[in-house]
């Protein structure tokens, strides 16, 4: 079958979002999108209708993005990782007994799954991801979007496993706080009567 380029172009915004979250460089993103498009057109015989075009295209994009991350590895300054953030985030959240502080104790989010249907939620979600320090976000994205195993991320970036866990924990905590402030607290949350 022949792939219509206008169909590919329609998927461009989503591909750009995806690549940008990982690469954070407009120029690198454009290169990756272009390579993905070219590969898709070149290998269109390999596309079977069994999977959707988007899934197929994203599997190409995923590989191209991983290649770009690897190519850019020399630019990844591991030493900036520790400077990305210190451990003080936990001191703010917990008291000296390790219990939640009164102001930071997490509240229940009301009906969070409904957010998936809301376009606005996704722009808040992207903003929160882009708000993470670059290296923290890259490791989080490698784990959650590229579905790397933690061991492979560590190997790739020469980090210890426990270091990776700490960084992923920080990323999730930051995202939790960001979504709480920018999305869920504005919803007029009411305590559930469960």
């Amino acid at each position, binding site marked *: 079958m022949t792939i219509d380029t206008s169909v590919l172009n329609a998927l461009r915004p*989503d591909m750009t979002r995806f690549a940008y979250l990982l690469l954070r460089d407009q120029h690198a993103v454009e290169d990756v999108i272009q390579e993905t498009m070219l590969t898709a057109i070149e290998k269109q015989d390999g596309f079977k209708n069994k999977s959707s075009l988007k899934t197929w295209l994203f599997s190409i994009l995923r590989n191209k993005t991983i290649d770009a991350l690897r190519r850019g590895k020399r630019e990844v300054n591991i030493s900036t990782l520790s400077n990305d953030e210190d451990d003080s985030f936990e001191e703010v959240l917990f008291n000296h007994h390790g219990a*939640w502080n009164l102001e930071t104790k997490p*509240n229940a989010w009301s009906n969070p799954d409904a957010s998936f249907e809301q376009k606005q939620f996704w722009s808040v979600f992207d903003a929160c991801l882009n708000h993470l320090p670059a290296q923290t976000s890259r490791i989080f994205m490698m784990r959650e*979007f590229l579905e790397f195993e933690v061991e492979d991320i560590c190997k790739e970036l020469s980090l210890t496993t426990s270091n990776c*866990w700490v960084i992923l924990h920080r990323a*999730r*905590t930051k995202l*939790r706080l960001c979504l*709480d402030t920018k999305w869920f607290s504005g919803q007029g949350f009411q305590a559930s009567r469960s």
Partner: protein
Amino acid sequence: MMNCKEASQLMSQELDRKLSWREAITLKLHVSLCDGCANARKQVNFIHQACKHAFELNEEKK
């Protein structure tokens, strides 16, 4: 007894590795008694799900 700080570390790690039996039980016990951690865990799991939904590839992946 596990505290909230340790519990919140484990609820992140359980998304990245299989917790030991002991860790899993201690986390479960803590969360069953602690509102804050129960909410934190739901939120962290929600973020994990959101990543799967972010590009709407999840249904097609199966």
